């Protein structure tokens, strides 16, 4: 049905796809699996015409085809459901579905006809979707079905789903898989891009494993195992091993109790969260993305609207829950944010100015009357220290932060947050988009800080990372802490069950 042959794609100096070849048989569900950054999404976006390959060819139904835009892909019967939905929120389901291939005359759209057709399509697959509802009134799982309907309305024979389960609750994942199986019954072909092995095993007929932009294996799902796939994905038997002595925690640094966050739409993002973190230990938080981890870190850092948060946050026995982000920094809370491009860095500012973000309001950086002046020697000294201690390359403080690689950007952020000797370090996704060397460096630094007596709260969507680093592990689901385990004594399967509420698809 679809075949990629020797597809190569570069972004700048990153080789995203290195001679990738994938063959998808018609009437099957084909999984493409790999870690974040393995190049799976890139390959599929090339198949859908979102990107153009630097070299290689694409065959559809055995014929070599030029796919330069989504338009071409649609014409060839390829549909794609993106990780971030491509929906126009104030418009109705039907309007979204027909957009681009509207029925009726240009001067009078045949919306009643479209509504009927969409209703029929959704009933075939057992979906209960009202075509006249506005997208903004639908739940996430239903919005995803609108995306499926869009592809089916365009008579797609092949459907590519990019990380379709990332945003879904376990129950919704089950429903999605039922729909996908039904589509296979009707002769459609499905490609599902994911990094979750349980899903691969549950849904697919065949699986292609990618690592570092290359295809490293092709298996019939029935003939492989989670262990084999995991080995292929990471290229070694054990994913991550961090050398660390046992923790010697002392008194509590952070004590959270009853922390609840209700966002402006009335959703409970955090629900009665209570735990503590002691000096000299790393407490990990495991969970499927979007279950409240981001909100937890941002609430502790003072970055959410104070009106949305209730509960108590105590740092060294002092209530800090009502303090703003700056005051919390003054008290010794440091924060490595999950999205360094958006939050952690001023990409167009030079490294020196990035080194004072969060520290520009107090000595030694701010000096003189009213602490008005930024001391150049202090900034340069601070920057040099951070760049050297954290091996940021190139160590040129006049470069814009944008010009650094992901790993070096992250080391810069880490260095900046650690350099003032924080009492509590909040770390989210510390190694996302970081090369192997950088990952090891960052992990070592976290353990070092722990052993110096820093209290560390670590959130990561990489289960391997939290289990390897954490001394204690909290599991979060739907904004609630659903359990605490000793990562050394608990298998990943057990933790996975807790993360998904035992209803793994």
């Amino acid at each position, binding site marked *: 049905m679809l075949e990629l042959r020797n597809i190569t794609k570069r972004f700048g100096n990153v080789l995203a796809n290195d001679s990738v070849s994938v063959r998808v048989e018609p009437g099957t569900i084909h999984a493409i699996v790999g870690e974040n950054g393995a190049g799976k999404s890139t390959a599929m976006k090339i198949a859908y015409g*979102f990107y153009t390959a630097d070299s290689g060819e694409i065959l559809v139904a055995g014929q070599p085809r030029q796919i330069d835009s989504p338009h071409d892909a649609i014409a060839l019967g390829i549909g794609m459901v*993106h990780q971030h939905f*491509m929906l126009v929120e104030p418009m109705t389901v039907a309007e979204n579905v027909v957009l*681009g291939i509207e029925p009726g005359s240009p001067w009078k759209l045949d919306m009643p006809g479209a509504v009927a057709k969409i209703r029929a399509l959704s009933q075939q697959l057992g979906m209960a979707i009202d075509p006249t509802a506005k997208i903004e009134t639908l739940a996430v799982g239903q919005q995803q079905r609108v995306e499926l309907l869009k592809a089916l309305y365009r008579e797609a024979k092949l459907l590519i789903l990019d990380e379709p389960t990332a945003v879904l609750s376990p129950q919704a994942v089950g429903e999605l898989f039922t729909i996908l199986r039904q589509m296979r019954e009707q002769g459609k072909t499905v490609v599902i891009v994911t990094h979750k092995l349980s899903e691969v095993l549950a849904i697919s007929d065949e699986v292609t494993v990618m690592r570092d932009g290359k295809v490293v294996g092709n298996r019939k799902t029935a003939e492989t195992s989670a262990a084999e796939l995991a080995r292929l994905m990471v290229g070694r038997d054990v994913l991550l091993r961090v050398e660390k002595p046992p923790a010697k925690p002392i008194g509590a640094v952070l004590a959270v109790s009853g922390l609840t966050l209700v966002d402006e739409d009335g959703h409970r993002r955090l629900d009665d969260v209570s735990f503590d973190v002691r000096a000299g230990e790393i407490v990990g938080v495991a969970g499927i993305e979007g279950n409240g981890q981001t909100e937890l870190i941002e609430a502790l850092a003072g970055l959410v609207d104070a009106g949305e948060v209730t509960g108590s946050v105590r740092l060294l026995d002092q209530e800090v829950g009502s303090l703003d982000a700056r005051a919390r920094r003054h008290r010794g809370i440091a924060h490595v944010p999950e999205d360094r491009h958006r939050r952690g860095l001023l990409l167009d500012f030079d490294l020196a100015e990035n080194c004072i973000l969060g520290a520009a309001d107090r000595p030694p950086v701010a000096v003189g009357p009213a602490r008005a002046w930024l001391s150049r020697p202090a900034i340069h000294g601070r920057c040099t220290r951070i760049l050297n201690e954290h091996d940021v390359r190139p160590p040129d403080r006049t470069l814009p932060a944008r010009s650094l690689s992901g790993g070096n950007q992250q080391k810069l952020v880490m260095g900046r947050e650690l350099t003032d000797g924080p009492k509590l370090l909040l770390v989210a996704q510390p190694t996302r988009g970081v090369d192997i060397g950088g990952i090891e460096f960052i992990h070592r630094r976290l353990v070092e800080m722990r052993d110096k007596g820093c209290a560390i709260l670590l959130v990561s969507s990489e289960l391997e990372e939290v289990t390897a680093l954490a001394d204690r592990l909290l599991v979060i689901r739907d904004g609630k802490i659903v359990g605490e385990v000793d990562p050394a004594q608990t298998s990943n399967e057990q933790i996975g069950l807790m993360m998904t509420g035992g209803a793994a698809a």
Partner: protein
Amino acid sequence: MSQILTVAFLLSSLRLATPLLLAALGGLYSERSGVINIALEALLLAGAFTAATVTHFSGNPWIGLFAAIVAGVAVAFVHGVACIRFRADQVVSGTALNIVFLGLPQLLAGAFFASTGATPQLPKGQLLPFTPMVIAFALVPISWYVLERTRFGLRVRAVGENPEAADTAGVDVARVRYLGVMLSGALAAIGGAYLSIGQASLFTRNMSAGRGFIALAALIFGNWRPVPTMLACLLFGAADALSIQMQGVSRVPVQFIQMIPYVLTLVVLAGFIGKSRAPRALGLPYQKK
């Protein structure tokens, strides 16, 4: 009060609302497609000057009106190229055009008529005192229909809210936006033509006098929807009519009545009376990956 609410007053309100309405409906097409159009002022001036000039030379106001539309579309096209093709800041591009048109009509008038900015007076038979008014109010239901019931309207709305979604669905985002911007040029230019060959009988320096901005205010006030936008234009037209009628008669200084549209808009923007919601992609250039 009864003295104020006369037929003459109502008529005068309608007349004064007409150029606002035409410019605001023009702005609506542009902004619903995601392109901020603060160049309405420039478009009004372009339409007004072209209509008066071409009518003077041709003796036919219909030709003048047509020429005004062509000029408006051309100026809007420049805005479109800057914003869509070259991803210029839309507010800056609009401001640039506004400044150009503070000078250009005078520059051309100087060359054509050896005047310092005005065009020659047109005879009464060469004016179009009613047609643009009819066009303006007829365009309100038409615009509603176009936006809600036609393919173009659907695409305009989609492109203004989520251009990436429209793009992946096979809609040519740039094309829809060009059309939206150029339509705004056409409509605003009719409004401009009404100023010079409808209400007045010649073009004078800066004769739009901020109406482009009031139209913009009406558009925001009307939540980027045709009927509420029309009501806002009528309100502002009535305020204008009132200020003319009260000149010299009342003790309320005319400046306060002139302020009404602007203060009302500020109040709306501050959320004191409902909240207006702009198209989500308004002002954001779209670049295909």
